[in-house]
């Protein structure tokens, strides 16, 4: 699995997508290897444990080759696409893709490409040529390439305490992935059942963007998957509210925390102003005006309360913080002098704050890199194990695979081990499992388990890897 799947197929569907405004880069960014999908689909673990390390394959709306997948998702090529629907689908897809590309996510979740997929549709259904640029940009990082589309068949609801957050995150992306594929499928097969659901999803996606700009920063996932237990990381500039259900699986909507963004807030302020100001506006009215998918009245209510407090607080808060600010001793001196002192104090305060911020950023980046490094080392180690075992087996063909994989430095270790494991036969995988340290089995066990579940997957996977 490469972070950038080789762009292989150009179908007429792709052409159409291109026509829709997606640049050629776009099609390249959807390197879909249906064979890969094929493998992935059957690999979908039923368990709720979604190993974090699962990677995403780039969402490719171009389904290149027939995929026989148990999930029933996609399998056809885009031989023909109804122009408009393609566009719609595509734009939604691309918008979602857009997010995946956030460097934030990339750096944060190198292994978990889920974040990538949670791009919200920034603009309504019209195909955006930006989508293509999104893809292009996205492709420079591996993060959002999801190597395994295992998620696609994931059961929706995860209340697994350990992984609930994870799966929650993964779910939306799964769905997106699924949707991408299914849109493709639809275009080809015109499946009514799918169509209706997809259209719904698309409508939802589109609705979540009341025309606000989407900064390239974060993702807010529109609450199309209320069961998704985890909210998407980062949230700037998204109009879709992100509602992270609590992992405890609380069903009450009030408990769901929403992640506000400046854009969302602007929409809120607009609505409030239209209704005559913060005092006169009612939560219900604001909710109606905002027309944001997934926003509940509880969110609006609490936000309105905060908003009102913020408007009437400024005066009192200044007084108290001044008192607390013990840097300025002489408040009773000349206005000029104290003015200068205050200025100086503020400047110093600002300096220190900036310094702290700098250091925090540096520290954070270091931490991220350390984690990446750690995962990479783990992956290398597992690869070594695998290749060592292969050597023992005396199978030369297997040797190629680890080496091929090694050339892609960005893969996450669990995913790697998954591929590595699934490359072999079932019994081989058992061997690998035994030979590895027992603690390590905790992590890859799911992967191995899933791999064992799909004996027919190795050949296609291998074929893919060998490309």
């Amino acid at each position, binding site marked *: 699995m490469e972070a950038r799947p080789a762009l292989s197929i150009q179908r007429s569907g792709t052409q159409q997508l291109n026509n829709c405004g997606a640049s050629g880069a776009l099609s390249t960014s959807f390197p879909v290897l249906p064979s890969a999908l094929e493998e992935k689909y059957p690999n979908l673990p039923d368990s709720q444990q979604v190993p974090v390390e699962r990677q995403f394959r780039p969402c490719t709306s171009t389904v290149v080759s027939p995929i026989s997948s148990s999930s029933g998702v996609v399998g056809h090529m885009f031989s023909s696409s109804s122009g408009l629907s393609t566009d719609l689908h595509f734009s939604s897809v691309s918008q979602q893709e857009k997010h995946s590309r956030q460097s934030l996510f990339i750096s944060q979740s190198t292994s978990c490409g889920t974040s990538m997929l949670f791009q919200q549709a920034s603009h309504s259904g019209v195909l955006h040529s930006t989508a293509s640029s999104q893809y292009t940009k996205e492709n420079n990082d591996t993060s959002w390439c999801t190597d395994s589309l295992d998620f696609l068949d994931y059961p929706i609801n995860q209340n697994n305490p350990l992984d609930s957050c994870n799966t929650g995150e993964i779910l939306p992306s799964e769905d997106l992935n699924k949707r991408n594929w299914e849109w493709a499928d639809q275009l080809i097969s015109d499946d009514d059942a799918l169509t209706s659901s997809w259209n719904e999803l698309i409508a939802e996606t589109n609705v979540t963007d009341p025309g606000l700009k989407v900064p390239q920063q974060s993702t807010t996932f529109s609450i199309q998957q209320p069961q998704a237990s985890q909210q998407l990381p980062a949230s700037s500039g998204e109009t879709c509210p992100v509602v992270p259900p609590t992992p405890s699986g609380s069903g009450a909507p009030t408990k769901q925390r929403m*992640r506000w963004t400046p854009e969302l807030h602007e929409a809120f302020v607009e609505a409030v102003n239209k209704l005559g100001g913060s005092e006169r506006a009612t939560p219900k009215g604001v909710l109606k005006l905002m027309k944001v998918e997934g926003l509940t009245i509880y969110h609006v209510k609490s936000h309105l309360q905060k908003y009102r407090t913020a408007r009437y607080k400024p005066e009192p808060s200044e007084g108290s913080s001044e008192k607390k600010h013990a840097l300025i001793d002489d408040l009773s001196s000349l206005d000029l002098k104290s003015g200068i002192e205050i200025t100086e104090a503020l400047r110093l305060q600002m300096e220190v704050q900036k310094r702290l911020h700098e250091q925090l950023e540096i520290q954070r980046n270091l931490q991220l890199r350390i984690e990446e490094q750690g995962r990479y080392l783990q992956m290398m180690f597992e690869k070594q194990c695998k290749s060592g075992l292969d050597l023992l087996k005396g199978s030369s063909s297997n040797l190629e695979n680890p080496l091929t994989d090694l050339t892609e430095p960005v893969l996450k270790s669990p995913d790697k081990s998954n591929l590595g494991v699934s490359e072999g036969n079932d019994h081989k995988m058992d061997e690998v499992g035994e030979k590895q340290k027992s603690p390590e089995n905790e992590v890859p066990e799911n992967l191995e388990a899933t791999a064992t579940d799909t004996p027919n997957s190795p050949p296609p996977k291998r074929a893919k890897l060998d490309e």
Partner: protein
Amino acid sequence: MKFGKRLKQQIQESLPGWRDKFLSYKDLKQLLNLISSAPPVLSGSVEYVRAESEFVVLLNKEIDKLNSFFMEKEEDFIIRHKELQQRIQRMIAKSGSEASGIDYKAEMRKIRKDIVDFHGEMVLLINYSNVNYTGLAKILKKYDKRTGGLLRLPFIQKVLQQPFFTTDLISKLIKECEITIDSLFPAPAEKKARGEIEAITVAGEGIFRNTVAALLTMQEIRRGSSTYSHFSLPPLNLPDTDVIKSVQLSSPIPIP
């Protein structure tokens, strides 16, 4: 328990409303001790399994707590940011008509103070995020070490995705603040000489104190660990440490 102590210090130094929102490092550590002291047989021991699952449950609970607090503060900041922007716009509009009335100056000073405090609080929130992340990373590392488990890697990956760790929005707001301040209140060149800062004692519980405390704590935490590994952060080298060193923290003043 060196980190634990530092964390406690940091908590003490933090803003009053934040103190109970930090990671319960101590509780997690205690649970971990429980796990290691439970019969080591993985399969046969009920207490072990129970303690382990309690640990995981507590971890998830903590993460929820961190997320909620973080998102709430983030929401507050978003609102405040907008309000500040509006105030500034109003001031700029007014500055055309009433040139340098005393009210105007006072208002500008207030705005400046508010922006600086706003900036400070946001930075403290990022610090909050960072400190908690560090705590989680440490406790997970300990867990793996003590139990031989492999909880750390996948869990950390999960943590990296959490709202409380994805601080990009706040970072962006912070940078905007800095730009705003720099444009509204440009720094005169001569004031930049920092060589002669007299020692300033920072008292009280304000933002400034907390910021300084945070910096000092960060420095301490990264001073170098006995268990240095490729997962450890390098020691912190603060450039211009004279600025920080010149600011000392007086003993905490009890809340009146």
